[in-house]
């Protein structure tokens, strides 16, 4: 199973534990990830401020062109924002030959050309549809029995395309967590936005989003939140004290990546493959049941 | 005809266990049904075969004592020359008498046997009415617009001769003024060509269609299968049925001078005038324009109803402007955008082309200016007052009025009521009735189709939209209710179907809706007529004319066989072969009335067979039960109930009567329009009769029972029985 893993900027920084755990999980499931040589940032949904539409198209077209030139595997994005940007641009280019031609003129500046052969996937898509729940079950060595987890999707993980899972009522992450033996709790806010896009600059307005999401998870009995997006993970985790200060809430909820829990269940070391030591809010009692 | 009578008793569905069959036969025997056969399951193939064998051997009058006349109809019909009387032992005796004493149940059964027996012996098989001379098979279509043209073509292509009459010099109606049609066909985005040329070609090319333009109808005489129509151009035509497709008139914009400044500027026009401009290519130079929806529609001071076509027309006309000048600012100011079904896409398309829709509140926009216009309106969606300046034109989306004279009927007045007051009511009604006519019907009840509301000539606009109250005359298109062009088109085709059907019924000598196929019809024993006019006045379908001496002149092909005339006639001269004052009266008399001391009261329920009877059947099947002292007699319509029956019943010791019929009033359900109403009015005067007999008025009750009121039937009956207990037995018992 060969894929490009489009790391994206976060995995090099605040999402490093996503990278570590993802690579560990890939190993356990026999997935070969290749890096796109010299990939660039996708621009994320904030690019519109500094850049314009054509520029963000070009940013992503370049990555697509590189991928096509370097073997044409599906691009798997662990980061929802990267997934959306690459996928959106890819779909537009495939749908509009005129745009494709125009973009190729620009790519020519870097001696690149894109013909539209690449498929862009989210990591949940890969895990659920290509690997499959059964294979994941089979790889489990240390079932997450007794772990009460809330599966958080946030926004861009499934919206707007709803290609591999429902926009409004997704299930892929829930099923994967269940396959790990974890107890997936009822969670009303699973697709509600956490505001990461503008959190840093509009914290007073967005604090309540984080509060509601975490409290909703806690209300469902969750001791830990699992995500599949570095924006969400960072945003839900590191600002909890700030949010408490602003909203008077009392949040202290560990937030991890689904891949960290997988790595753990696959028998990986909690601070190695599972990279739990990278958490700002320690997993604490949430994972004690499985000795982590 | 010589009757060979035989009775058949079913023992199935619990009848055999619950009743003493010997007693039942004996009871029927008293009414002339001597011979009887029993069967365990009469409706089984074997049972039916048994009956069929007798029929083949000449038996032609059958008393079938089994289940309701509404059940097993196929099994128990043996052709229209064989009289069948059904006795509903199952629904009306066995299933509904759970709480009754055995002997009461038995008496109930025996009474029904007597009632059925006497009805059978007194009935004759109907002989279909035959018009003298040849039945006219041509269809007359009045009105050459979209609906009329389609009606004419449809009828012609189905093989009928068609006369198409149009008052204008050319055919086409409003189509002549139309530039383009809005999107009608998938994907509902493109304007379409006017279909008129194609339609005209079909009409002119069709051998079966004879067209009379510049002509109106001076006079319509006769009846279905035999109409004679005199045209203004001197022509005289014979037709079997008539379609009135006279279309609509735009609401008079002069009436909007106050509300929407119509007339204050040449640039304030109606949608009809605007269409004309578009047709003449006069839309150049429009840079800014506003369409105002509901200009006179959905407005208590103008047309209370929605005209149904204006939203789509404005979308279309807005597209005209955009296509002539894509830069133009085009506004549609609306209350609700009403683009139903697939035409939602037309709304979207108008938006795609850049048309701006502004939602207003109830208040009309204020329009000022003469050349360039200014408009101020509430913009609900911005939640503030806004103004549009420098408008080149304002289009008022005015609505449609049916081209049919408004007819107001005087409220029904009971016999014996103050006749002066009655005259006054008639005068008032006349005053509100418009004094022009489309068909100039030579009918006793007036020249026009009766109308319910807004001069729309219909009677049951939900279930039976084509039914006017003049048999064989159907309305089509916008004359019936506001509708869109495509609907008016289909409507014409449907009207043609009804017309062809009416002619067919006239040929066969049977009734049309709602008693379709009924071959019985009212016969008048003229020598006893006192010219009281009640039948001619009360017939809901204007079937009965009058000669100069005020003798009734029945027109059987106009008749719907409801029996209202029979109910109206104080002299009892009107009867059907299988339904008459005498037959029902005899059924009532056939009821055995026990002595007072037996404390077994008797109550007769005259039940409308369209709503009450099914409700009773359903109630019985659902296991409801009620007093075994009541006897049901189905009637064609409560309007056919003759007061004599009441008097006879009471004088023969019956303790009380209930008339069960359908809802009356504005939302009446009576399939004969006002039968239930009539019964109610007549009963309001029954007190006189009762006083004459020194009886309490509580003994008579008129109950509204809808077909789904089966849960109420038992309640109504049992409650009435209590009333009867409290007023005590009828003193006439045993006389």
């Amino acid at each position, binding site marked *: 199973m060969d894929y490009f893993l489009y790391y994206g900027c976060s995995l090099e920084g605040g999402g490093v534990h996503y990278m570590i755990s993802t690579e560990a999980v890939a190993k356990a499931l026999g997935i070969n990830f290749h890096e796109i040589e010299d990939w660039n940032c996708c621009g994320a949904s904030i690019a519109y401020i500094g850049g314009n539409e054509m520029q963000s198209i070009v940013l992503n077209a370049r990555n697509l062109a590189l991928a096509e030139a370097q073997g044409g595997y599906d691009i798997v994005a662990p980061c929802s924002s990267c997934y959306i940007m690459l996928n959106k641009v890819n779909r537009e280019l495939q749908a509009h030959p005129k745009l494709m031609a125009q973009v190729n003129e620009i790519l020519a500046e870097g001696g690149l050309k894109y013909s539209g052969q690449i498929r862009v996937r989210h990591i949940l898509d890969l895990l659920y549809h290509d690997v499959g729940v059964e294979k994941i079950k089979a790889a489990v060595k240390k079932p997450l029995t007794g772990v009460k987890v809330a599966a958080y999707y946030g926004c861009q993980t499934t919206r707007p395309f709803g290609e591999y899972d429902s926009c409004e009522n997704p299930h892929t992450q829930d099923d994967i967590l269940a396959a790990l033996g974890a107890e997936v709790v009822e969670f009303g806010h699973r697709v509600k936005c956490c505001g990461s896009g503008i959190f840093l600059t509009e914290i007073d307005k967005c604090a309540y989003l984080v509060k509601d999401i975490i409290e909703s998870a806690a209300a469902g009995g969750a001791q830990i939140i699992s995500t599949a997006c570095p924006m969400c993970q960072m945003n839900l985790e590191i600002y909890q004290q700030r949010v408490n200060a602003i909203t008077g809430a009392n949040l202290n909820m560990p937030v991890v990546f689904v891949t960290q829990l997988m790595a753990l269940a696959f028998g990986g070391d909690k601070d190695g493959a599972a990279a739990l030591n990278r958490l700002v809010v320690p997993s604490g009692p949430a994972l004690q049941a499985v000795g982590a | 005809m010589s009757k060979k009578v035989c009775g058949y008793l079913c023992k199935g569905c619990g009848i055999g266990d619950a009743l003493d069959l010997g007693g039942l036969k004996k009871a029927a025997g008293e009414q002339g049904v001597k011979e009887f056969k029993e069967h365990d399951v009469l409706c089984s193939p074997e049972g039916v075969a048994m009956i069929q064998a007798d029929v083949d051997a000449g038996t032609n009058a059958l008393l079938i004592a089994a289940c309701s006349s509404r059940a097993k109809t196929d099994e128990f019909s043996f052709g229209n020359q064989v009289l069948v009387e059904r006795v509903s032992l199952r629904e009306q005796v066995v299933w509904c008498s759970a709480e009754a004493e055995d002997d009461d149940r038995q008496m109930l059964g025996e009474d029904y046997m007597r009632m059925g027996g006497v009805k059978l012996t007194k009935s004759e098989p109907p002989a279909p009415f035959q018009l003298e001379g040849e039945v006219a098979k041509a269809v007359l279509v009045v009105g050459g617009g979209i609906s009329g043209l389609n009606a004419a073509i449809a009828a012609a292509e189905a093989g009928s001769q068609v006369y198409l009459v149009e008052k204008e010099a050319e055919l086409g109606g409003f189509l002549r003024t139309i530039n383009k049609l809005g999107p009608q066909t998938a994907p509902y985005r493109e304007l379409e060509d006017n279909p008129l040329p194609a339609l005209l070609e079909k009409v002119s090319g069709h051998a079966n269609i004879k067209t009379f333009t510049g002509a109106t109808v001076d006079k319509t005489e006769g009846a279905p299968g035999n109409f004679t129509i005199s045209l203004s151009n001197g022509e005289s035509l014979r037709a079997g049925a008539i379609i009135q497709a006279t279309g609509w008139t735009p609401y008079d914009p002069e009436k909007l001078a106050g509300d929407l400044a119509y007339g204050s500027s040449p640039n304030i026009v109606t949608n009809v005038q605007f269409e004309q401009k578009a047709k003449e290519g006069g839309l150049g130079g429009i840079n800014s324009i506003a369409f105002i929806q509901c200009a006179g529609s959905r407005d208590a001071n103008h047309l209370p109803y929605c*005209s149904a076509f204006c939203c789509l027309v404005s979308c279309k006309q807005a597209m005209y402007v955009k296509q002539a000048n894509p830069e133009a600012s085009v506004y549609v100011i609306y209350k609700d955008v009403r683009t139903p079904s697939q035409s939602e896409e037309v709304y979207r398309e108008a938006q795609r082309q850049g048309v701006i829709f502004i939602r207003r509140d109830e208040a009309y926009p204020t329009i000022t200016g003469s050349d360039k216009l200014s408009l101020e309106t509430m913009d609900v969606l911005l939640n503030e007052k806004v103004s549009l300046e420098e408008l080149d034109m304002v289009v008022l989306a005015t609505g449609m009025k049916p081209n049919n004279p408004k007819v107001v009927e005087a409220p029904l007045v009971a016999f014996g009521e103050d006749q002066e007051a009655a005259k006054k009511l008639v005068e008032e009604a006349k005053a509100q009735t418009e004094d022009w006519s489309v068909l100039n019907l030579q009918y006793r009840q007036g020249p026009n189709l009766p109308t319910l509301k807004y001069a729309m000539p219909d009677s049951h606009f939900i279930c039976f939209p084509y039914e006017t109250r003049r048999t064989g005359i159907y309305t089509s298109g916008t004359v019936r209710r506001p509708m869109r062009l495509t609907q008016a088109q289909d409507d014409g085709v449907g009207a*043609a179907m009804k017309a062809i059907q009416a002619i067919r019924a006239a040929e066969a000598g049977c009734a049309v809706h709602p008693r379709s196929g009924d071959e019985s019809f009212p016969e008048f024993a003229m020598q006893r007529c006192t010219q009281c006019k009640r039948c001619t006045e009360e017939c809901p379908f204007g079937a009965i004319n009058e000669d100069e001496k005020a003798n009734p002149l029945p027109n059987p092909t106009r008749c719907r066989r409801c029996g209202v005339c029979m109910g109206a006639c104080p002299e009892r001269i009107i009867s059907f072969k299988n339904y008459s004052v005498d037959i029902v009266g005899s059924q009532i008399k056939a009821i055995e009335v026990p002595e007072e001391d037996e404390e077994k009261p008797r109550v007769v329920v005259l039940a409308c067979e369209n709503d009450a009877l099914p409700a009773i059947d359903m109630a019985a099947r659902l296991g409801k039960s009620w007093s075994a002292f009541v006897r049901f007699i189905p009637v064609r319509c409560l309007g056919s109930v003759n007061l004599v029956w009441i008097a006879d019943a009471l004088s023969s010791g019956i303790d009380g009567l209930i008339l069960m019929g359908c809802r009356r009033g504005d939302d009446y359900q009576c399939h004969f329009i006002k039968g239930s109403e009539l019964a109610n009015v007549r009963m309001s005067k029954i007190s006189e009769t009762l006083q004459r007999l020194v009886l309490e008025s509580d003994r008579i009750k008129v109950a509204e029972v809808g077909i789904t009121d089966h849960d109420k039937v038992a309640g109504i009956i049992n409650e009435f029985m209590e009333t009867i207990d409290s007023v005590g037995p009828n003193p006439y018992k045993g006389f």
Partner: protein
Amino acid sequence: MTDETKKAILVVGGGMSGLSAALEAAEAGYQVVLVEKNAYVGGRVAQLHQYFPKLCPPYCGLEINFRRVKSNPRITIHTLAEVTSIEGAPGDFTVKVKVSPRYVNDKCTACGKCADAVSATIPNPFNYGLDQIKAAYLPHDLAMPLRYVIDPSIAGTDEGQKAAAACPYGAVDLGDAGQELSLNVGAVIWAAGWTPYDPSKIEYYNFDKSPNIVTNVQFERLAAVNGPTSGAIQRPGDGAAPKKVAFIQCAGSRDENHLPFCSSICCLASLKQSTYVMEKLPEAEITIYFIDIRAMDRNEDFYTKVKASNKVQFVKSKIAMITPQANGNLILEGENTATGERFKAEHDLVVLATGMQPNTALSQVPFDVTYDPYGFLTSGQAVIGVGTVRRPSEVVTCVQDGTSAALKAIQAVGR
């Protein structure tokens, strides 16, 4: 004219459109074969409590039409029957029809003994699954034909045997294997009707997550005297009488993610249903959330009447979210577009005005015909589309349409 010698007209679908088409043609002297997929004719109107705007029971008009059928020898009806193939052309069609077993023959007297005998139940299709009914059942009070049905689920079981044993008339025929018919007809009228749009597809309405969110067709059953609650309007969740009822318009209609077209009856249906609540629960608060109120032609009077009652609050807002609460209530979120206020409103019963999906979009005509982008049959084809397979329409238009279809059909057989 000797119409009897002409080829018959096939009408597919025994709802208001098909019934009208069949009757109008038959009463003009033509032979008609009516094929209906349900166990009874009458279609969806039979499941309505009342018609707008007269608030009268549909049974009333159906009774007349049924009597027209009973008294007309030219109409043959096949229930539980579906057309499997059509070949030929107007004037000469060969049509194959599959009749599914009813397991009850025409000896049935509707005495009900079979139902008494069996204990197995099935979700009552007539009540849109709001309650259970014996697996040997009469489809509804005015069923035509008035004959019981044995549900296939028990045909081969002891329950089936019980039903057979209980029937005094040998009407239960568990060996019924159905049949294949081959008909030669001159015209085919397609009146297959509609299906309410599946509201669970509007995920953010959480239809599946609360019993107290019902569709407008289910609500008709809740108000009907022959419905699951004998006409008492109750919350399916707990049987309580609702105090705050919400009607949500365009639940799926006028929505490119669902049905892009307007279903054209839902506004009046909800206005009508608001009068049910007024009548049966005078204390209840009623709110109708709408985009545009589409009460066409004279039906505007009905809208006016409901507004005049001052019992209904009209809020111009498409509802953006429904969230079920622990107490069974529902939080509705929307933007009142007249005030700009973004609101949350709590209701204890929510009625979704779900739209009309043409059955031709769900299962196509087995013949070369064309459809519009939404799956409606387009006009002027060899197979004559009528009623709600042509466009969403209310009863009047279906009758009108059925009548015109009858004429097109007699033209075809006249050839």
